[in-house]
């Protein structure tokens, strides 16, 4: 197809179409709808030969995908926010059963209060459910992730479900020029799904069984190793992807002008585009600042972060999430990586973009400005008048 003007949702749908899933089950929720609408069009016009199942809930969407994956079919589903939470039971089911389902999640705030706009509290609340979690920055990366997700998830040494996250509206509904690869190219990148972890009439199996205290830890340990193995498989996938498509990705993190940076902002998702612009402007003023974008948060880039941050004087984590009563979840994860690597620098947490609140260039400027103080703080951006409620403690 070559260059097309596509939204993030549409780009992701084209990427999925190129991966040729055999079963798609989906239930509509804003702002995910367009990805499944587009896929149903592609099935209708014959571009994609797949069973499109109109399930009656998100729980059934993922339960259906698990059933299809358990007989060896490549499967896709998509959701967002309340839908992700409604299917939460099936998330650990898919990962525990080692079913390499791919799901797109349109990042959206979770009720209450009701809100359809983008933050990342939905997916970040599910970090422990055993899924690989990737976050796209733009529409091209969305398409490319869709294609690479199956490569990683279905790899024998990984066998884990894959959640690709796109910021609601900001990425799902924004149009950009996207290079859509040819089918032949996609086929040369992605091998067909072959697995022994399936029910088979030639070799009947009992799957998704019970395992008591004696065996349970072994299963969970293997599941953990599978997710850790994803690190090297992601690198392998990206290398092959670059060879075939000419676009190079950078593994679990993307480092932007961090080599000699004193102050580094760490974030994830589409806001990274704005941060890059700001970094360029500040660099032009001679300020040694940089950005790290977390492309994957499961598996978590512990070593990659330690390597990229070892010479920094202070870091800030900007995230659209809060773990109430503590801090941003990404911040917790980043601090753990620093601690394990013996890096002792100031780290601060900026919680912003909740319920779709705009994170402005001025907000990013403020973060870089405050980083120079090399303090450890936790702050909310865009409080909208709530400043009058005093933060109870120093942190």
């Amino acid at each position, binding site marked *: 197809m070559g260059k097309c003007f596509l939204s993030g949702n549409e780009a992701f749908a084209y990427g999925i179409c190129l991966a040729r899933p055999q079963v798609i089950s989906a239930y509509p929720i804003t702002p995910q709808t367009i990805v499944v609408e587009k896929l149903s069009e592609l099935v209708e016009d014959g571009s994609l030969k797949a069973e499109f199942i109109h399930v009656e809930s998100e*729980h059934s969407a993922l339960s259906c995908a698990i059933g299809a994956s358990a007989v060896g079919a490549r499967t896709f589903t998509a959701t967002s926010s309340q839908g992700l939470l409604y299917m939460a039971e099936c998330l650990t089911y898919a990962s525990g059963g080692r079913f390499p389902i791919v799901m797109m999640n349109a990042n959206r705030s979770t009720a209450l209060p009701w809100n359809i706009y983008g933050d990342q509290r939905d997916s970040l609340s599910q970090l422990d459910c055993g899924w690989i979690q990737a976050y796209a920055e733009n529409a091209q990366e969305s398409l490319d992730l869709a294609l690479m997700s199956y490569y990683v998830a279905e790899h024998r040494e990984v066998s884990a479900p894959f959640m690709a996250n796109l910021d609601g509206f900001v990425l799902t509904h924004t149009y950009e020029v996207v290079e859509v690869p040819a089918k032949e190219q996609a086929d040369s990148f992605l091998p067909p799904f072959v697995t022994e972890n399936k029910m088979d009439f030639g070799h009947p199996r009992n799957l998704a069984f019970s395992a008591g205290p004696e065996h349970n830890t072994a299963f969970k340990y293997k599941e953990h190793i599978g997710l850790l193995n994803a690190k090297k498989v992601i690198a392998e996938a990206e290398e092959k992807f670059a060879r075939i498509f000419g676009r190079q990705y950078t593994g679990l993190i993307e480092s932007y002008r961090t080599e000699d940076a004193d102050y580094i902002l760490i974030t994830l998702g589409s806001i990274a585009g704005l941060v890059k612009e700001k970094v360029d402007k500040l660099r032009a003023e001679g300020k040694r600042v940089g950005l790290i974008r977390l492309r994957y948060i499961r598996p978590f880039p512990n070593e990659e972060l330690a390597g990229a941050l070892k010479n920094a004087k202070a870091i800030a984590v900007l995230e659209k999430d809060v773990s109430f009563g503590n801090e941003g979840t990404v911040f917790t994860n980043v601090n753990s990586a620093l601690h394990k690597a013996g890096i002792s620098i100031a780290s601060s947490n900026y919680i912003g973009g909740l319920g779709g609140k705009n994170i402005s260039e001025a907000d990013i400027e403020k973060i870089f400005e405050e980083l120079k103080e090399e303090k450890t703080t936790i702050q909310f951006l865009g409080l909208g008048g709530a400043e009058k409620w005093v933060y109870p403690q120093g942190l």
Partner: protein
Amino acid sequence: MGLSARTLNEEEFFYGHKACAGCGGSLAVRIALKVLGERSVAVLPAGCMSAVGFNFPQLCFGNNAIISTFAGTASMLTGVEAGLRAQGIDNFHAVGFAGDGGTADIGIQALSGAIDRNDDIIYICYDNEAYMNTGIQKSSLTPFGAKTTTTPAGSNIRGNLRPKKNMFEIVAAHGIPYAATASIGYLNDFMRKVEKASKIKGTKYIHILAPCPTGWGTATDETVEIAKEVVECGLWYLAEYENGGFTLNYRPKEFTDVAAYLKKQSRFKHLTEEDIQTVRYSRDAKWEAIYRNFKII
């Protein structure tokens, strides 16, 4: 030649499990799989049959089988069927075995969705009239008057106050291609219905009453007898729904005594004569409706 104990597949597909002695549900699963054969994928949600059959490394199904989420029997069946068909595989049965709670309570939404899509699956509800696996709690298929661990029989409340949800007719109201009721007391009838379902395209639903000695308070060698008696006394019935119409398959010449059926079971021991009269009235009202709306063979 019709299916009978004489002609039934001798191969066992559900064997070596640890169900309680006298378990009615395990008999339903065992017999249905013998009828459907080796090209079956069985989907069982959390519940008695999955609890007794899938304990790694002791896995008891000779055919392909998988546990679904509690609410997800029907939706997983949908995925299994679509996944196999999408790979060009045919000539198989996707069959679900869910209990009364897994069907009429937590699983009813997914079941309704599957029937609405007319997915080519067989859904068998083995109804033992309470959440037996978790220790005999009330479900929406627990009958009036039954004592369960969440509907205790005391001086204020005498067991479960609500009648059994009418799953058979709820399912039929979807316009499903085939639905039937059955009892493990009438296995030839059940086998015939499973076989019939296996030859019909689209969604099939069989609701089989399967007594549970543990939960009902009956002797373990009385399961089949009690499953006959519930039909003979008119508190359960054998029927089918197809082509938009109901058919009654068996009409007891004269109902046996409801009180005798109830008093055999410790879950009904506390019922007063007035309670038993309530059960009789509701039975008679049900049968009036059956005579009105069902074709009687």
